[in-house]
Each structure stands twice: as C-alpha cells, then as structure tokens.
C-alpha cells in the first residue's frame, strides 16, 4: 500500500510546450576546462563568503577559496588548480544586472586535486560528522534558489518523517535532473541513503513528473530493495517542482504560513543536491561542478554538460556547439522563472540549471498590454491561491498595506498568471517590483527606527547629564550655604562687594548665578 496521498495542488499549468526532448538526445557532456573561472562570492541567497586566498596565490582543485560568513552563506572552493588573478566586482548572473564581488581563477591546466576529506563508511558515521562534511563542502540547493543545504539538513533533533526528493523538474526545456537520474541513479541512491541516515528519516519519496519515464525507471532500479522508499510519478503540471507544491502533491499537506517543511516533518531536497551530497561525503569533493542544460532554438547542439562552477556562459555555449545567428536572448534558468543575462560573459554559478538560447521573438509578446478585465484566469492558475488580479490593482496603486493583506509575499513568482493573462499584463513583473519596494520601505522604516532610537537615547543621555549636573549644583549650593553661615566668609564677601562698587559695577555676580550658566 502506498504511503502517499497523491493530491493536486491548486492551479498550475498543464500542457505547457515542454521542448525537453531537444536536450535529452545525447549523454551528459564531459567536463571541459575554460580559459578562466569567475566565482561570485554569493552563489544564491545569503551573505557573500569571505575570501581566504589572496590575489596571485596558487590553489589546488577543491581548495577552500572563501569561507561561509553568516547563517545563509556557503563556502566556495577552487573548481580546478590554478592562480587567483583577481578579487573584484564583476557582472554576475543576477536579475538585478548589478556587479558583485568575485574571485577570478586562471586554470593551470593540471587540474591537480588537493587533499580530500572523504568518509570511508558514511552509513556508520555519526550524523554530526556527515553534517560537518556537508557544511565544509559548500553545498547549496541545485534546483534554483541555492538555499544552503547544510541549513536545510540542520534539523537539530526534530523528527523527520519524510525525506522528499524533488525530481519534478517542471520548467520547460530543462533536463539536467532528468539526465542525471538516467545516468547516475546509483550514486543518487547512495546519496539518499546517506541523507536518510543523517536525518533519521522514516520514509523517502522521490517525486517526479510522468514526462521522465527513463529517469523514473533508472531510479526505481537503483532504489530497489530500499525499505520505505517510493518513487512517485505524477502528471506533468507546472510548477509541481515548487517545494510547497511538491509537498502538497506528494504528501497532501501544506507547509504552514511562515513555517518550514520541517514543521510538518518534511525535508525536501533537489535530486541534483542529493548527488552533490554523495560526492561530498563519499568522494570528498566539494561543490565545484554541476550539470547544466544548454538548449533552446538558438542552440546548435542542445544537450546537458558537466560544467565547472565559474565557467563563463559564452565558453560553455561555445563548447556546446555554439549559438545560431540571430539569438534574441540568453536566459539563465527556465523560460518561466529564469532571467535574461546582461551579457554572455557572466559565469555559471551553483544554481545555474539551464542556459536557454531563444532565437524567436514570441509573436504574441508584441501585442500591447490591455486593461485587466478581472476575468480571474490568473487566480485559477495561481498555485499559491492568491488573487493576482487584486494584487495587480494594488501594485499599480502602490498600496503596500493592501498588497500585504492580499499576501503578496506568498507569491512564488512562478509566472503562471502572466502566462494565461488575456490582457497580456506582465503581472509577475509588477509583483517583483512591489516586493522590492516594500522590502525597501521596511528597510527605510527600520533605519528610521534606529535613527529615532538614537535620538531618543541621546535625549535621554542629555537629560541624565543635566540631572547629574543639577544634582551637583544642588550639592554645591548646599555646601556654599553651609559655608555661608561662616562669619569669616561673610566678611570676605562684603569686602569684595565693596571693592566691586568702587570699580563702578552695580552688582557683583554672585557665585550662584555663575554656576547656573550651562
């Protein structure tokens, strides 16, 4: 009997043109050595890693280049042996198109490994030891967001009922997980066993869409005989690979608002990440390469390639047979959630699953945007059950209060609403902008709060000082009064007054009034 509760998630798109067959015709291409590697210190979410090498230093393959700094940051390692040639801001693959600090490495061509801390028998190693290896290996989620794997796995004793392996790969065109499962299912199965041991997870579910029968077959061969381990193949629907959607689909449960999958006993990892865990633990290799799909109608030879992190996109494309003439855009990621690259010299990073070369301008895109007619097609397809038409209205009105009321921040930016909009409104673009603006407002508010606190603190300090001074004065006065009863001092004062009169002053300044001046 199945342990699963297959259930649909709300909305989504069925029957998207997938174009996956473009890139599954040939085996994964072997690693190649680019002329240089550019490694952004931030590889996804979180803070930049802190460089531990200097310009000019020679490094070995797998050597630590930058260490994690802060809770959401990941370590960065040398993808090959060579010399560090620069640590400076460069253009990086990020939707903002802004430069960020990178380490540039010029390969020496020897590809010489440093020392690799592999675990001989991970399944009998204590979980803390495995976790330490994963932290050190700089693993980040390879599915898209690049969330540090070590953070996801740091369950700190909380019970994990289900280890959910995300092999949905729901975006059109992308096939890197599909090909990985077809070719390296045994290694993935080892990764699954390590993770299950690490998390003490009761059940393992590998969830995939039914458009990958070869991959599912390979996985089921590799997982045969493992207890409490199932492969779930569900109907293809975008965005089934969204973490929350996949959990609902596979387990019939929703992750509570503001919570984590762990709150309902689930840890969800991308299948590529599972493979990377296996490589880190059993081969001692940090995350220095990944599989990237190079595809689209602008790619001469669409396929999947093992690529060193830091490889410039243009070198990857050239290695993959080059682009056809008249490529209109180069997108990193899928067509639904990816972003256009500012130029093709930006590097492949840990989250780069696809380089999509699109030749044709989508004809309908050239139609003008029309007013929203509130038809609700967007709400019907929204996997978060939002009301995109209301969010659009309030995003245009810049009404952040209403936007938060309609749960703007639950939007996963999957693009389903924009895809179905008959008025051709770029809805997701509005939501991204609105989110950015609200975050900025909140930051400004926080800054203003700090400034206000400082002002209040200063005022309080000044008040305290004033009070102290007043107390001092009072004490002095009291002391003077005591002195005032002294006849000797009175005589002296009288003499001074007399002397002042003589020099023409009307009144002698008293000791008190002088003291009162601030």
């Amino acid at each position, binding site marked *: 009997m199945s342990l699963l509760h297959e259930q649909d998630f709300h909305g989504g798109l069925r029957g*998207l043109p997938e174009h996956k067959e473009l890139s599954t015709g040939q085996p994964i291409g072997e690693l190649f050595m680019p002329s240089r590697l550019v490694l952004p210190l931030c590889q996804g979410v979180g803070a930049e890693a802190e460089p531990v090498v200097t310009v000019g230093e020679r490094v070995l393959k797998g050597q630590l280049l930058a260490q994690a700094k802060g809770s959401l940051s990941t370590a960065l390692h040398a993808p090959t042996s060579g010399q560090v040639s620069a640590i400076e801001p460069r253009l990086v693959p990020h939707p903002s198109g802004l430069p960020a600090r990178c380490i540039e490495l010029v390969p020496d061509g020897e590809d010489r490994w440093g020392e690799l801390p592999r675990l001989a028998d991970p399944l009998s190693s204590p979980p803390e030891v495995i976790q330490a290896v994963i932290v050190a290996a700089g693993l980040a989620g390879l599915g898209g967001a690049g969330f540090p794997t070590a953070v996801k796995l740091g369950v700190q004793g909380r019970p994990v009922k289900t280890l959910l392996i995300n092999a949905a790969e729901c975006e059109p065109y992308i096939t890197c997980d599909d090909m990985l499962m077809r070719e390296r299912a045994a290694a993935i199965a080892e990764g699954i066993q390590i993770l299950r041991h690490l998390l003490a997870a009761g059940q393992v579910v590998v969830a995939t869409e039914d458009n990958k029968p070869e991959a599912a077959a390979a996985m089921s061969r590799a997982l045969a005989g493992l207890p409490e381990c199932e492969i779930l193949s569900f109907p293809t629907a975008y965005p089934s690979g969204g973490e929350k959607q996949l959990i609902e689909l596979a387990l019939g449960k929703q992750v509570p608002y503001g919570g984590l999958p762990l709150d309902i006993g689930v840890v969800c990892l991308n299948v590529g990440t599972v493979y990377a865990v296996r490589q880190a633990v059993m081969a001692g290799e940090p995350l220095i390469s990944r599989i990237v799909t190079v595809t689209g109608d602008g790619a001469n030879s669409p396929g999947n390639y093992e690529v060193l992190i830091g490889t410039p996109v243009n070198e990857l494309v050239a290695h993959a047979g080059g682009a056809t003439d008249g490529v209109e855009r180069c*997108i990193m990621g899928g067509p*639904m959630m990816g972003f256009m690259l500012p130029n093709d010299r930006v590097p492949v990073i840990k989250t780069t699953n696809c380089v999509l070369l699109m030749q044709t301008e989508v004809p309908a*895109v050239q139609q*003008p945007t*029309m007013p929203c007619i509130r038809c609700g097609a967007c709400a019907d397809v929204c996997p978060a059950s939002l009301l995109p038409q209301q969010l659009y209205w309030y995003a245009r009105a810049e009404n952040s209060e209403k936007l938060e009321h309609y749960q703007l921040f639950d939007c996963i930016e999957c693009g389903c609403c924009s895809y179905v909009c008959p008025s051709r409104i770029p809805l997701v673009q509005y939501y991204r902008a609105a989110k950015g603006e609200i975050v900025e407002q909140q930051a400004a508010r926080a800054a203003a709060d700090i400034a206000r606190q400082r002002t209040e603190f200063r005022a309080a300090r000044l008040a305290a000082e004033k009070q102290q001074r007043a107390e001092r004065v009072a004490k002095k006065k009291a002391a003077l009064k005591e002195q005032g009863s002294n006849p000797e001092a009175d005589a002296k004062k009288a003499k001074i007054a007399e002397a002042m009169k003589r020099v023409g002053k009307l009144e002698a300044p008293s000791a008190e009034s002088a003291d009162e001046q601030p």
Partner: protein
Amino acid sequence: MSKVASSPYLDGGYSLRGVMLQVLLALVPAYLVYVWQFGPGILITTLLAMTTGLAAEALMLRVRQRPLWPFLSDGSVLVTAALLTLALPPLVPWWVVVIGTLFAVVVAKQLYGGLGYNPFNPAMAGYVVLLISFPLELTRWSAPQSLLADPVGLVDSLNMIFGVGGTAPVLALDALTMATPLDQMKVQIPLLGSVEAALASSPVFGAIGGQGGEWVVGAYLLGGLYLLWRRVINWHIPVALLVGLGLMAGLFHLLDAARYPDPLFHLFSGAAMIGAFFIATDPVSAATSNRGRLIYGAGIGVMIYLIRTWGGYPDGVAFAVLLMNMLVPLIDYYTPPRVYGHSS
C-alpha cells in the same frame, strides 16, 4: 510593443480579442434560433447597435486620447452591443437601439474609464435606461413566427425598425406583438386565479417556457456550455444563478403550485439563461474570487425571482445584475480565497 523585461518568457497566446470572439461565437446558435423563431429583425438591430457602439467608442477614445485600434479591435463593444440587442424586442425602433447603445458605451463604459473599469455591466445599464425611459417600445415583443399568419420578413423588419412608411409600421407592429410569457403569467395569475388558467389563457406559452422563446433559451444554454468547455467562463456564476433562481421558484411552487409557476418555467423564460451564462459572467463587473462568484450568482438568481414575482416588472435580470454589481466590492472584501499554508 515592449520586450518583456522579466520572466515568464513563454507566451500562452491568450488575448482579450480571443475571449470576446469566443463569447460572440457562443451567441451564434442563439441568433440562428432567434431568426428562425422571431424573424430577421434581431440581425438588423444588432448590426445597428454594433455600428453605433464602435462609432461611440472611437469618438470617446479620441476624446480621452487613448489609442483607437487596440480598443476598437478587442471585441468588447461587439459583445456589449449583441447582449443589449438580445435584451430588446426584435422590432424595436432604431432610435431606441441607438440611445441604448450610446448610454452603454459612452456613459456606463467610457465615462467610468473604459474597458476593465466599469462597475456596472454596460449592456444592462443601457437596457435599464431604455426600459425606464421608453416602456412602450420596450414591451412591444414580437409574437413567434409560428403564431403569425404572415411571418415577418427582412423588408418588413427594416420598415418597422426604421419607421419607413409613417404610421403604418406601428399599426402593423401592434398586430405582430403580444405579451411575453413572463408578462402574461404575471398579469393573468391574479386575474384568473391560478397558474393553470394563466397558461391556458394565451398561445404564447410553450412546452416549458415561452413558445419559440424556449428554443432561444436552449440555444443560450448550448452557448453557455460551450463557454464553460472552452474555459472562457467558470461554472460558479451561472450555476449559482440558476440554482438560486430555481430554488426560490421551487420553494414557492411547493408552497402553492397554483400561484407560483414551476422552476423550469422560470429558468426557460425571459433573460434568466442569457443572464446566467453571458451577462452575469461579465468579469469586469462581477465578483472576483470563486467563492465570491457563488454569492454573486446566487444573489442575482434570488433577486430575479423576487422582481419577477413581486416587483413591478415582468423580468428582473437587468435590475438584479446591476444591484449585485453594487455589492461586488463588499463581496470581494469578505471572500478572499485561503492562501496556501494559511489557516482558513
């Protein structure tokens, strides 16, 4: 013509024009049956309303300094014109059609900001203005062709609509018209004492609704099912409307079958069916969440029954729709869907 700045870079190929064309396509069976049952007059009034509507829209877009082509070609004016004329008697004078269309397009739509911004259904707003202003013209409904000795042809229709030939067409028109089934029912029940007697009082009644009219209603239902199948509309509003109306009619019919006609009569008479599938489903002026749409549709259904049974007019679809249009902001406020992961 801008390039999309951010994802998605795939295009679903949906367009407003496509949606409006689907609605017009879904009305084709009703038009065919209408012409068969009541003569070709409806085609003339529809063409007149469409031409007037496009001209008025173009003028208003020019005045409002909006681009002409995208809005004229989106098809929304054609839908408004078709729905308005289907609500009017088929041999109504041309100036009635023109005034109604002008009000719908200029006032109810463009003065509120054009497509997407009108709180009231433009066709129904235009219809209600006509109903209140020209009650005589609006109640001169043609008898079905099957009840006429001499069926109305194209030339007769043109003459009557454009008033060619002085008073003769008006006299001729009087000979061609008769009370609608809803009107007949409303007037005759108190006079004759029972639904049975009222049904027997006039040949205008058909098997379930009105003679001839029930066929048109069947064609609306067919068109509505097509819209559901093509996912142009969701089921919530039409089902809620028909259930709301049917339940009210059923309840009172059970209480006193002699005074209250059965639910099928209500569903297949008047504008209930076109209202359910084509008018109340106008997304601009309807509630926006599916839960809200259920309330909105049911409210219209109940109100249609109240107006038909106790109100001053034989049918109440237009008033019911406009009244529920007013409640839309309130309904929307209280019926947001449960967002993923949030407790209800």
